[in-house]
């Protein structure tokens, strides 16, 4: 299966962290990964990253919108949308909700394991983040 994931987020540090861990997870699962980014309009405008993860030779994609901060005003109706409001997760200034949103991706994308991200969070003793991630990924 091929997936086209579009991610949006304004917490730059945590967006960077979750993105790297996700990219590593996809690569370890033998998906071919392509990334396309966009330039944000200002220093605080949302970051945008499109990740194509290709696991089959078919030219069909499943589209997923990952809206980390409830930023989307409109979206394509055929896409799966993951956002804090869809998951009924409260927005948190420390970015805890990013881990819930990231976790939900593991229920949608086939053949990827949450073990790498869980391991990293465990190693860094980020217990709250790990709890959020596990709750939504399993």
């Amino acid at each position, binding site marked *: 299966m091929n997936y086209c994931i*579009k991610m949006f987020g304004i917490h730059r540090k945590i967006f960077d962290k979750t993105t790297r*861990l996700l990219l590593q997870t996809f690569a370890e699962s033998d998906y071919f990964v392509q*990334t396309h980014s*966009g330039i944000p309009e200002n220093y*605080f*405008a949302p970051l945008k990253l499109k990740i194509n993860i290709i696991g089959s030779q078919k030219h069909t994609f499943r589209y997923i*919108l990952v809206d980390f901060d409830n930023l989307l005003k*409109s*979206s394509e109706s055929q896409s799966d949308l993951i956002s804090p409001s869809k998951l009924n997760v409260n*927005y948190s200034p420390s970015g805890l909700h990013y881990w819930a949103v990231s976790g939900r991706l593991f229920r949608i994308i086939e053949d990827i394991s949450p073990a790498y991200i869980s391991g990293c969070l465990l190693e860094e003793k980020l217990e709250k983040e790990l709890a959020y991630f596990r709750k939504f990924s399993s």
Partner: protein
Amino acid sequence: MLPKNSFEIITEFIEQAGFSTGFAEINFPIFFPDYDLRLSASEGINYLLGAATSGNKSIGFFHSPVYFNLHNFIKSECIFITTSLPENLCVPVIFCKNIVSLKNKLTTAIRVSEESGLPVILVISGSVLFNYCEIDDFEFDNGRMSPTIDKRSLDKKISTDNFLDNLNIAEALLSTSFDNKFSSGDTVSLNNEQGAFFDYIVPHIKSPQLESIEKCSEIFISENEERFFKILCLHYPLVFNYQVIPNKQEEELVPILCPGCPFAFIFSRLKTEVYLVFTDIKCPSLSRHLNVKIREAYFTIGLAHNIKNKLLFIGNVSNFKYPLINIDSNVEIILLKDTDTDREFYPEVKLNKLQKAGVTLPYSCNNIKKYGQMKINPKKCKCLKKNERPECIEQSFCPALFRSDDIILINEDLCTGCGLCKSVCPYGAVK
């Protein structure tokens, strides 16, 4: 190995290649604190050219197109990185469409500049910044020279023959590094994620890649890059058939400005609807969300002659020169203090005392100060409970404000205490 982000790749390149002089245009999307010199783009270009002429490795970051007249050959490498396609061709230009090729393009740029004695422009697509890639470390042989200059070398002007010889050196190097060609039906676009783009162009010399495009029966180009192709056709000259692909509609996101944005504050305080508002601060969010036109101060002042419309110019103090011409009464000016300076064209006002133009605001986009910390009284915060639009978020576009269940919360790390949310809250919930 975790992938590196664009910022890490670029900073590693700067460090490993040993650049000693740098400049970043104000509001370049990635912030380089050491390169924030508060110069305009053209001033920054001249600063870097001067440094490279005396033998300093120089690098600059721009969001404007880069163009200059070269008076002297440079003694050390000089790279101009920009996110805009060129509007004139003056030196070799290398293009980087994907982050995967960024390392190769950066190292080629430095080699071409070193061997040709010319500055090199590296145009990067929107997909290169804020992206990720697994790459190995850069390796450079860092023999450094001591910068020096004498009067004779400055007097020696570049002759046309010498300049063409150096362009030929650049072309020879680049054509051996990149041999991609285009075929009929290809999409040739820098910013469209489909297709490919030129690896490089050298002024006055038609590369094999440019020649290949002439042989195509048809190619596809992006609507917002058509102007660049027209410039190429005039410059070389070049004849080819193309079809324009319309710009893609992107997902619509909530508008966000910087916390404490002085423009948002001015717009909430003054009746800006009676003005045509201009600024020389090149922030695309201002034109998109606040209908501010981006123009130089003197364009605005010239525009005002013999017309009745009221014009408001908002710009940085450091970029504002004392007006040599009379300013018509229909032009009003607000200056933003972007740097500590004694120069005072207009009296400085406290933020909450702003009532009219003809003043200097105590801060600017690149110099936002923290005035304090706004707090929200949850009992008084009622708009979401009543299913009303949250005025504080909608009028301030502030990233420090966010919805949580049925109240608004403030991200303390981002709040500057500017008080804009307080002034627009209909329930007095912010203090």
